[in-house]
């Protein structure tokens, strides 16, 4: 007799992590994924900018740029924020599922595992 172990399909949520203690907001620079698409390990999800001068006046604003990348294989089912969105920590970014057709009428089982990567911004001065 053989048995095939199969993980149950679940929903995975992605919320904006508090990357820096003092951050009040993050600006989404780019969403690299589209609803219905699959993401693999290491897939880039979002690029974002954190400007700490949002929280306190600063002559030399500490501006940092980050990328969120996937550490789970999943399907993007719902995109909650796109480029230009200005979000507070813990705001929903996206909802994923471990199977492409998993019903969305259930609570997320856990958070999507991600990497947070400090990046060099792609744009120039303008």
């Amino acid at each position: 007799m053989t048995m095939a172990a199969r993980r149950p399909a679940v929903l995975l949520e992605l919320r904006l992590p508090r990357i820096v203690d003092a951050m009040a907001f993050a600006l989404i620079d780019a969403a690299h994924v589209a609803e219905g698409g699959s993401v693999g390990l290491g897939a880039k999800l979002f690029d974002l900018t954190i400007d700490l001068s949002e929280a306190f006046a600063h002559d030399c604003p500490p501006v940092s740029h980050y990328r969120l990348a996937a550490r789970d294989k999943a399907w993007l089912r719902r995109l909650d924020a796109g480029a230009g969105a200005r979000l507070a920590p813990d705001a929903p970014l996206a909802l994923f599922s471990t199977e492409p057709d998993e019903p969305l009428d259930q609570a997320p089982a856990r958070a999507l595992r991600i990497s947070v990567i400090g990046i060099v911004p792609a744009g120039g001065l303008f």
Partner: protein
Amino acid sequence: MAVVRSGWNWLVADGHRCRPGEGIAYCHIGVRETPGGPTAAFLRERRDLQAVIATPVGGVVRHRPASGGLLDRLEFFLWNPDTAIADIEVAGDAQGDVVARVSIAAGLRIAELAGDNTGLQSGWHARNRAWVDAPGAWGTLLCAGTCEAAGVIKGARGGCLELMQAVAGPAHVVYWDDAPLALTARSLLEAAERDADANAAIGADLAGVIGPAANPTDWMFGAALLTQLQASPLSERCEVTADGGVAHTAAPDALLLSIANEGRQRLRHRQLGYQIYMHAFRVDDAGPATRAWLRDAFEPVKVTLEAVRDDYLALIRQARVARPGATILIMNALSSDASEDLPNFVGLDAPLGELVSSVGRKEANLMLHDLAREADIDIVDVDLIAAGLGARDHLPDTVHGSAAMHDEVRAEVLRLLRARSVPGFAPSAFS
């Protein structure tokens, strides 16, 4: 010549227990041909020239009465070395007079209107300097400004108090600010090579842009930009008070640079050829005409680490032509990122150094090690110091450090200067 001064401004409260060598007061000073006559020296810094008074003994400071008001900001009094400034209550029965140690701080305003004489080196300056006189050969440290170095050089309260306290002198420290332009190795070189005609061409080009703008923001930004572009920190020779008179310093004995100033994308003027680099947020501070000019009159230039290395080598050669054996210190960068959570590099586009900022900083630091071997320079190991103190608390955004961080980096800068026997920077009796 005559030295005139304002009333005393206290840097410490009445009753403060001071350490030997600590700066306790300052006054505004002027160097005049006669007590009521015209300015005889420090013409461009005459409105932000200040004398800092340090006590040679530790104890409890008791203020002598101050004049207050504008008398403490304007030079109404003749400098008299016999003036009693404060009383210092010391342990035991010791009594008598002690001679204060005096250092001088000078600020070069962006424009004469950009003044604020309410504090020690307060106001908007393109350049700050400080020096302390003593017998012996002068040493000058020139720093191309950056946020990592500002607290190290200018100190927590301005006036380079900590540095002046730490060195025996005669020592002279020059700090050029990084607003709006960051002073890259290339920009320092280009400025040293530009002649009056080239500077005039830059001015005429900029005037054609901001002149018609009739916008205060454009004009203010343009004034700061032009002040920086038409100055040459490397070839400048400065006045200092020395041996009861005024002397001029020689070429810098040491340079303090930062890899953080070497941005990966510069702007090159399409017609005039000069290159500039500024932090992106500075562009937001420019007026609309200036922003349009930066966008249209310049082209972006991608800067590789090899190009930065070549610029450094050229700058080092130039500095050592002017001052053979000049000491070159370069601050490296924090190579890790406490906010990063990156278990592997799967899925990241190559080259990693151009995408992942911590990898880029590691590569820059490695380049500095190659440069140190090749050109006999010293690395100020900011990376190691931040790691030792705890980067999350002391260098949270990789750039802006705590007072403890600045103190440690300053101590390392001084250690390196002393190891190279840069004159004037030997330890003081108070360090």
